[in-house]
């Protein structure tokens, strides 16, 4: 199998977008022909390891706009999950001779090992411009030049990142012990959580009980946690009807809740707000968000293609952060339940750590709740 895979590296390969535009590149990583996925781009200049291992990219063909990828090789301790869930990986150039004292191998080998196809040598800037103009589209990766037969194109046309949470959420409950003395017990409702979420909580004295997405509110409440963390995750939030229903029960129980990314969207849906698909989303490590309460602006790490529509927020929910670039909703504070959520990634990895204080805020919320007067501020 290894031989067969190697033989494709450097071979021409084509990416056709749903709008008919074709980009030529060369194959690396695992071989493929006929792969389809949703094509998205990320502008992060560092953090490709975290991008590759972020389960939120499940079902997507991810394009890096920074042209030199793989410079520091593969560093397993920096992975954000055990697997790679994205469908394919597109770069301008991958680094054959990576350099870093922690480096354990190169990008190509890792993609081959994990069975992920890659394309290099593509005009990634043009690809990003195309997606920016036309919006997120599906794409087809083929080893032969167009034109394509209808049966080759059909899977691309009908493709949808369908219920991806099922694929990336853990099957079993895992307990991560608190660092030092256990001060809180937190349930991490894992829709494809990045590892740094539980690390940030552990660091702050939380025992983290990582539970599958399919867990029920009863099961979670039975664990008697101090708070519930709604994780990030892939796909259309509306796919998760069951989870949304269960989340409502959690907030009805006035359990302190902190939600990130998909978790933010799910809670909003649970409370009656609506979400929508963005033209091409926010992916990268340079998105400015403004805290509407303090006026402070933070640079954040983001990865989302759906947004909570601010004007659909119900009573009892207030927008707390907005995106400085496009004014979209970046955070919600609930006044009728001790909960707050953000669209961006305070756990960083990759990207700036400017908002990691939000985890501290979660601890405060749990403290207040113990005293019985928790109101989200």
């Amino acid at each position: 199998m290894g031989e067969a895979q190697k033989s494709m590296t450097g071979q021409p390969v084509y990416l056709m977008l749903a709008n008919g535009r074709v980009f030529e590149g060369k194959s690396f990583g695992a071989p493929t022909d006929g792969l389809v996925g949703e094509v998205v781009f990320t502008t992060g200049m560092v953090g490709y390891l975290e991008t590759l291992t972020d389960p939120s990219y499940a079902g997507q063909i991810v394009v890096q706009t920074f042209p030199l990828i793989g410079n520091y090789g593969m560093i397993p301790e920096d992975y954000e999950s055990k697997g790679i869930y994205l469908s394919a990986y597109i770069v301008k150039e991958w680094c054959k001779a990576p350099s870093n004292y922690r480096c354990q191998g190169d990008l190509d080998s890792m993609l081959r090992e994990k069975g992920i196809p890659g394309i290099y040598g593509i005009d990634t800037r043009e690809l990003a411009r195309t997606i920016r103009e036309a919006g997120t589209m599906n794409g087809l990766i083929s080893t032969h030049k167009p034109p394509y037969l209808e049966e080759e194109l059909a899977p691309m046309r009908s493709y949808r990142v369908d219920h991806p949470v099922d694929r990336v959420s853990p099957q079993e409950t895992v307990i991560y012990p608190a660092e030092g003395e256990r001060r809180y017990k937190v349930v991490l409702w894992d829709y494809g959580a990045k590892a740094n979420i539980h690390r940030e909580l552990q660091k702050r004295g939380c025992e983290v009980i990582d539970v599958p997405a399919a867990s029920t509110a009863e099961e979670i409440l039975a664990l008697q946690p101090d708070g519930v963390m709604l994780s990030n995750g892939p796909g259309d939030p509306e796919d998760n009807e069951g989870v949304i229903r269960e989340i409502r029960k959690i907030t009805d129980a006035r359990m302190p809740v902190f939600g990130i990314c998909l978790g933010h969207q799910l809670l909003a849906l649970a409370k009656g707000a609506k979400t929508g698909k963005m033209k091409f989303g926010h992916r990268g490590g340079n998105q400015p968000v403004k805290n509407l309460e303090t006026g402070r602006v933070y640079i954040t790490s983001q990865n989302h293609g759906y947004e909570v529509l601010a004007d659909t927020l119900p009573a009892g929910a207030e927008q707390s952060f907005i995106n400085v670039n496009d004014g979209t909703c970046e955070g919600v504070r609930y006044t009728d339940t001790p909960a707050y959520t953000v669209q961006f990634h305070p756990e960083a990895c990759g990207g700036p750590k400017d908002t990691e204080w939000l985890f501290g805020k979660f601890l405060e919320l749990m403290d207040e709740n113990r005293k019985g007067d928790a109101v989200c501020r």
Partner: protein
Amino acid sequence: MPLNQSLHKVLVIGSGPIVIGQAAEFDYAGTQACRALKEEGLEVVLVNSNPATIMTDTAIADHVYVEPLNLETLKRIILKERPDSILSTLGGQTGLTLSMELAKCGFLDEQGVKLLGASPETIDKAEDREIFKETMQAIGEPIIPSLVVKTVESAVNFAGTSGYPVIVRPAFTLGGTGGGIADNEDELREIAENGLRLSPIHQILVEKGIAGWKEIEFEVMRDSAGNVITVCSMENLDPVGIHTGDSIVIAPAVTLADKEYQMLRSAAINIIQSMGIEGGCNCQFALEPESDEYAVIEVNPRVSRSSALASKATGYPIARVAAKIAIGYRLDEIPNEITGETMACFEPALDYVVVKFPKWPFDKFVYGQRRLGTQMKATGEVMAIGRNFEQALMKAIRGAEISQYDLNRNSVQILSDAALRDKIRHQDDERIFAVYEALKRGWTIEDLHAETMIDEWFLAKLTHIAEIEDRLIHEGYNDETYAEAKQYGFPDTVISRLTGARNVRHVPASFRMVDTCAAEFTASTPYFYSTHGEQDEAAEFIQGHTSGKPVVMVFGSGPIRIGQGIEFDYASVHCVWALKKAGYEVVIVNNNPETVSTDFNVADRLYFEPLTPEDVMDVIRVEKPIGCVVAFGGGTAIKLTKTLVENNIPILGTQADSIDLAEDRGRFAELLESLNIKQAPGATVYTVEEALEAAGRIGYPVLMRPSYVLGGQNMIIAFDDDDIREYMYIILAGGIENPVLIDKYLMGLEIEVDAICDGTDILLPGIMEHIERAGVHSGDSIAVFPAWNLSEKMRQTILQESRKLALALKTKGLVNIQYVIYDDQLYVIEVNPRASRTIPYVSKVSGIPMVDLATRCMLGEKLSDMGYGTGLYRRPKYMCVKVPVFSFEKLTDVDVQLGPEMKSTGEVLGIGRTLDEALYKGLVAAGYRMDKTGGVFITVQDRDQAEIAPIAAKYAKIGFKLYATHGTANVLRAAGLTVENVHKIYENPSYNSMTLVENGHLQYIISTSKKGRQPQRDSVKIRRKAVEHSIPCLTSLDTANALAESLMSDYSLDNTELVELKDLL
């Protein structure tokens, strides 16, 4: 918070003359800042002693003072102008230090002037080594073990515990002046003593050596609300141990994983927050390559050279945003000009890499020590943008104007393996080429990493370049090898040389846009760079933004170097503005990140590209200009003339043939003869024998120079056959293809004019006269405007001859002519039908917008229609004196004796009602302390002895004690002066000229010698010692005389007139 309503009038302090470590980047920053303030309706008062800047244009600020930058003068200006605030962070170290002094002495409080940008506390936290250390410790940021000391003994004691090597950094000095690495006690003693003396507060930091760690920088912005962003990260290819200004730098950092990157980014944010900076800040870190241990090296609480680079690398206008923040705006209230949609509160995302390559002056200072260390030696830099590192590096190298189109450098290729290793260890300016050669010889990356500590990533990329080269050699020229080579930055000339293919079919470059956001948002930034094999965005942009106006292309002047400085950026920018005003769409090509011309909103479109034939032709292909302008970008632009002619691209203004006519010795001599204009006898030679023969025929002394050079590069006066042999050896070794010119050297009064010619008439804004007689390069002379020693008849002769020359050369635009008056006869030295170094100076002091008029002449307008008349312009009300400024303290082993080869890096201007007043102000601005008591040491060569006595008498009369070497002392005594004899170094080891310098008895040294340059000569040693002790060393009797005259005048810092530039008119 929006604009602070209590602000109405802001004082901006510029950075003064260009010196190594403080160059054009502050003109760019200051100009951007002044404009940002003015557009808010604030009244701007600007002070800068440097007339060669755009910021000192009367259009940039409301009140412009070209006055000395010192405390007394600034106080007087504040009292006169009554600003309510002062912006401290955009005038480099000079501006910052002066602002701090004004605040600390209580003056600002007394006058109710608010300090904007950085408070004195902030400045202390960053600049005072001890407070810096405390601040970092308080916020948990690691620093390198170090100790602030005030004595050499304490330094030695510290090193005893920390171990060697140790690094010495003097407090409050520029570009690490006076610092160094000491490997043992002897070295430490020497460096520490020097550093203590150079530090204005006599304080140095001794720190543990961490040479070899990665050097990473972050540019950070913070507003008053505490919002912080990092604009850009940068990684030095050369690890800690080589000053970042002398390092090859890549942006963004490439060898850091997200964990390390975010660790340092968070540290940078932590630092700027704790210091409370409101504006831009530069944080330098050292990162241990094999762990996550790091240390903060330095924090600059102001706009810096690195921020200019970061600005151009990302498109983020750091100086503009810093100025807006200083007057109250928050980052999220300042629009991002690039996208027009988003705000300045974001972090640029790059989809390219940027490489900066330094420009060193060692081609001029052949005896200068080339070794690089903690003291910056580069005078300028180039930047290149590419889609990969190899491409950007190759572009940077060919744009640096070091006669390199690739990494193969002859001077390292000829070395034996052992010598090559020595060269690599020696870490001089050629190290990158030596490392490349070593890789080609099969040395391993591991070996070279161990030897240089350059990260393996960079070494692997260099290896990749070598592999492509190898493939070109072995596989030859075909579509595939060509495409690969182009993708990684190989120019056609190199591909052709390596493959042996004569007819390489050029595939045009494609241009990409710099948009700050990696294509995430629609941007219409007219800022492009080239790559190969991708979509072309420039063509698309031009189509989408067509104004229907004809396109004109202006070539900039490349990196700042001695002889071609900021003046040419001034001229280029003014040409762009004039063309825009005249209704053209203007495109500029340049590769210097420190300049105003490379701001993307100066021209209609900016191409950040090397100024080489291939790169420029690629831009021409996409822009299709109706013509190109080569006259304002110095030698860099002029060199492109040949390419333009070959490709039938029209040149606007003076034509190529005229440029050749002025340069070609034979043709020029014929022209002069036909015009009946005198020229010193001369010859053109190629070999040592020819040179000796010519000199013998013409008679010594003779002036020698290569043809086709600017700034008197490699120019000397030869007094005998030995001089000629030494000179020819150096020139021929440098592989200069053009002939060498030899002229009879006429030691007369040097006159210089810049004229504007429309093809039928000329306008002469005035005549400059040099204080120093011919023989000192015009760029190093003190130049007086208007000339004060000329008869009316001579003035008319100069006008007539200038007109004849300008018309004969069919000049359309500017022409610079240098004359010498010898025995009351006017001789032409040289004519350059293009913008000269003195254009900004003459424009400012005459009030004639010379570049503007010249550009209009170029376009066909007539001077008679422009409102300034023709002929010799009226005399100004004031006298103006341009005084050169040198950077000798940064350049070990360079002789300070002035001669025909230019050595100054910058200039200042003194303006006064009388010559004495102007000269006094000019000298003060240039850094002379103007001491009137103490000692003067005089040692002059034989031929100067006839003239020295009256000058010495002036110093004696002022009250100085005279010291002189034997021969000179006899002459002075014979003239009735009291003088103390001083032994030469070899005559008495304990009491000689050297110990006299060291013992602090001297205020001035007058030293001329027949021979110079070679560092081992006594005369050079004394002069170097004077530089180390900051004692002005006058190497021309004319300068010494002028200084004496000025000292004898009654002018002081309190009684000179403060002249606002617009009052000159």
